[in-house]
């Protein structure tokens, strides 16, 4: 009992009941049956949500220009993702060029917002890579803001190593995981995303 992690302070009736049950576990003479557990509930993390188009083809509100599509964005900025060095959130020259092009496009489409999403490789701890991904997204936001994109149009988030682009532990696979993605999320004031 000396390593029992909880139950020493009865914070509510339930805990107290638990400790009594635990005591019964020790006192075989109690002969209390094991509690019949109801089936575990399912937490539907996806619902309720409006039906959404595939993220890669997000339908945007009619823009100032009618080419405000992810495809157009990708064409213009060459690519919607940038890559980082290992365990680094510094923008490479190539990443800066890509972000400059993204900034230009975003300036042309002032009603489009973007989610800047940092990812990391599998070669660090889960928690460290989560923090690293956010650091990368923050670096992207800083660069875009310096190129005149309003900060409120840019949200940052991190997936760490939890949504890899490639699974292999080889360097080529992991290189592709050290990335920052710019995901267009429509215009301000528009619900649905």
């Amino acid at each position: 009992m000396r390593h029992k992690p909880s139950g020493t302070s009865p914070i509510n009736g339930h805990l107290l009941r638990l400790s009594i049950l635990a005591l019964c576990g020790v006192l075989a003479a109690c002969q209390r049956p094991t509690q019949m557990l109801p089936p575990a509930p399912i937490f539907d993390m996806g619902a309720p949500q409006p039906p959404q188009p595939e993220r890669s083809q997000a339908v945007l509100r009619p823009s100032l220009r009618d080419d405000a599509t992810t495809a157009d964005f990708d064409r213009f900025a060459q690519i919607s993702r940038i890559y980082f060095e290992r365990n680094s959130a510094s923008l490479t020259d190539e990443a800066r060029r890509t972000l400059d092009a993204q900034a230009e496009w975003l300036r042309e489409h002032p009603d489009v917002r973007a989610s800047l999403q940092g990812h990391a490789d599998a070669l660090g701890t889960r928690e460290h890579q989560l923090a690293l991904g956010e650091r990368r997204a923050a670096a992207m936001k800083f660069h875009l803001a310096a190129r005149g994109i309003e900060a409120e149009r840019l949200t940052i988030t991190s997936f760490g190593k939890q949504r890899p682009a490639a699974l292999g532990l080889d360097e080529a696979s992991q290189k592709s995981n050290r990335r920052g993605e710019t995901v267009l999320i429509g215009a301000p004031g528009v619900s649905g995303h």
Partner: protein
Amino acid sequence: MKRLDRRSILACLALIGTPAAAQGPLHVDITQGVASPLPIAIPEVSSGPLAGVPDVGDMGVALSHIVRDDLLSAGLYRLVAVEGRLAADQEVVLAPFMRAGAQALVIGRAQAAEDGRLAYECLLYDVFGGKVEASQRILVSTAQWRRAAHKCADMVFSFTTGDPGHFDTRLLYVAEDGQPPDQGTHLVATDYDGANATSLTRGLQLVAMPAFAPDIRRIVFMSYQDAQPKLVVADLDSGQATTLNTPDGVPFAPRFSPDGRSVVFALTRGGDSDIYAIELASGSVRQLTNEAGADTSPSYSPDGTSIVFESDRSGEQQLYVMAANGSGQRRISFGAGAYGSPSWSPRDDMIAYTHIESGRLRIGVMKPDGSGRRIITNGAHDEDPSWALSGRAIAFQRTTAGGSRPSLWITDLTGKAQHQVRTQGSASDPAWSGKRP
């Protein structure tokens, strides 16, 4: 039967009288993590099939196999094989077991009990002393028949080591759906040996970093909704899920405090990650660290007074310990490589961590003052350690080179007794529960 009952109650009282450990012949000394295994016989005791539990065959035999699997997985016992199968009503004769070299003998007798339940009488004999050292009459619903064996193994483990057994426990893990880059995840809860797996979440969203509350009824995890991560506390009994109101930023790495009243977590914003605690009843949030760099992965000491965490404030990830209010931060990990994902043992004598060196991740343990460091796993990519409530085993995630999906493993503290937990599909980021009610 009547004599047997009285004897089991007496033995049970004896067990209560000396709760800590057997100092006699059945004591397993594991002070240094290295034990000479206790020779133990766990014969099959036939009971016939049990109504309401199809596909199991002879219930008594099935239970004895689970007791064996449980105890052998701990790395502290050596199974002594003895020919033949006992009948449930057969008198136990110790001589054959003594001749085979068994010091301990576990006899489990299964029978149907009232209300369609299963009664399992579990007895631990000191073979040379010729007496019953511990016994329990375990009652479970037939649906949870496997728990009878786990509880029996817990009794044996607890008597022989002085630590609570970790066999009647649950694991949480993260299972992957789909293929990169559109990979989602869902949470699965399972018995510690992989049986009775149930999915707790669904949807193509991403969930991550689950942890049990000390009461096991509640869990906390990270959930991405529209790319924005939130911390969710879910009650497995009521099905109620509550999103924690955390400050702006990306919250992650949540863990309950040992009293279950608050959740400590990391929050990263604008490239800086710090550690916070939120009191669940009031919702009040307190910032515990304020250094530049990534402070992440907090884990409470079992008495709740200290927190170990990971920080790269020195340039590389290292482990730090601080008081629960954030004061007195000091680095405890030194030596080659980087250290992360710390987890404080329920026994309070060790901290498990992920060690990173030359692109390789392995599980290690050290004392809370940083001394006695040692690496206990040897995979290409072993991470996310989570303690058993006994403090004698660690669950972790293993990924082999070559792009395979991650799987769950359990190791003892020597690293000699390691086995894979059977899961359906991939499994990562395990969280091991405390004692089940």
